[in-house]
């Protein structure tokens, strides 16, 4: 399903982008639906899309072996995931699975990277959002770690 800039304006994640920038994002994005237990990507998969969760619920985790999945947390509506698609070597650091029917915005990572290089303002905004996502996840991991250490 194709997206428009108007669709993106309704989503908090896309605040602060200009109308023109939203049009650019819309032109490189599509909507994808996933059913319960669908794997969006596996750990160590090569990634080509960055996602923003619109509806539903996703589980994010890591695997020690293919059959042993460790569930680390839930991706909440409005959150960005699959950020590894933007940075070499473009390999996922975790797996993501739908635990409730989910609808996501899938952004073509190659086109996104080109635009990041071409438009400094767009690039700064996008990298800030990705950095914020990674920072939050790191902070949550430290929180989890301290919880474990205090047990």
């Amino acid at each position: 399903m194709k997206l428009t800039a108007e669709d993106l304006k309704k989503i908090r994640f896309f605040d602060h982008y200009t109308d023109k920038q939203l049009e650019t994002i819309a032109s490189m994005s599509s909507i994808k639906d996933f059913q319960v237990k669908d794997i969006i990507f596996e750990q160590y998969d090569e990634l080509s899309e960055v996602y923003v969760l619109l509806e539903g619920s996703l589980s994010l985790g890591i695997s020690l072996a293919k059959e042993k999945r460790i569930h680390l947390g839930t991706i909440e509506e409005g959150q960005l995931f699959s950020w590894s698609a933007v940075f070499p070597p473009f390999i996922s650091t975790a797996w993501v699975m739908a635990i409730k029917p989910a609808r996501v915005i899938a952004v073509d990572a190659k086109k996104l990277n080109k635009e990041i290089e071409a438009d400094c303002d767009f690039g700064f905004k996008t990298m800030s959002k990705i950095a914020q996502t990674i920072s939050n996840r790191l902070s949550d991991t430290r929180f989890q770690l301290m919880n474990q250490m205090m047990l």
Partner: protein
Amino acid sequence: MLNTKNIYKPLKAKLTEVIEESPVIKTFVLIPEKEFSFGTGQFIELSVDGIGEAPFTPSSSPLVKDKLEVTVMKTGYVTEYMHDLKPGCHMGIRGPYGRGYPVESFYGKQVLILGGGCGLAPIRSLLYALEHIKDKLEKVILCYGSKTASDCIYKPLFSRLNSIDKFEAHRTVDKAEPGWDGSVGVVTTLLNKINVNLKNSIAVVCGPPVMMKFGTIRLLEMGYSDDQIYLSMEKNMSCGLGKCGHCMMGEFFVCKDGPVFTYNELKNTPDIWK
């Protein structure tokens, strides 16, 4: 004239019900022998004759004067004894002590409440108080985290809150057990999905020290200012009078000046999360 009132003398209260909230947390429903008033966020000393006393913030509505609910986590000698008590016996209460939530300063605002573990006890009392004045508030959002779903206390509270106009409640667990289909992750992950108007919002944080630290840091990152964040320093409460000195935090006596503080008041205090 000499004041002969014994400030340590408890008020007798009959235990009428014991509610098992989680494997280590119970709520005691008490009927005091005379009406007992407290402000939400203030605390009491709950005692058992011959055993001892410990400070707790009531979890019941501050509007109810003839019944008091106190939620107790089994953590030591006194609380272990309390957990063995049966309805019909008597306990002692003295108080209320300290400074509670300045609810009137919340008028017209969005109230974001971040709670963890047994920290939901004082928050429940606050929620009752906020429900009473909901017409004067813009919105109330509760984000609560527990270790597992079975460690979550007041389970029916969440669906009830979500059915009240202007209230929304979100839950997460650190570790999912079979059958849990809600959010998984530390409580700060819930902040990713809520929508707040920062300029017109205050935040309340109550829970274990680690959760309070990371919760406060995330709220500051979101853009809350130091004086928009209220912290309930439950773990520092002690004799209730500021006499024993155990509640001292920097320049404050938590028993008298708290347990509710703004982050602005405490931010320069060493080891506030200890």
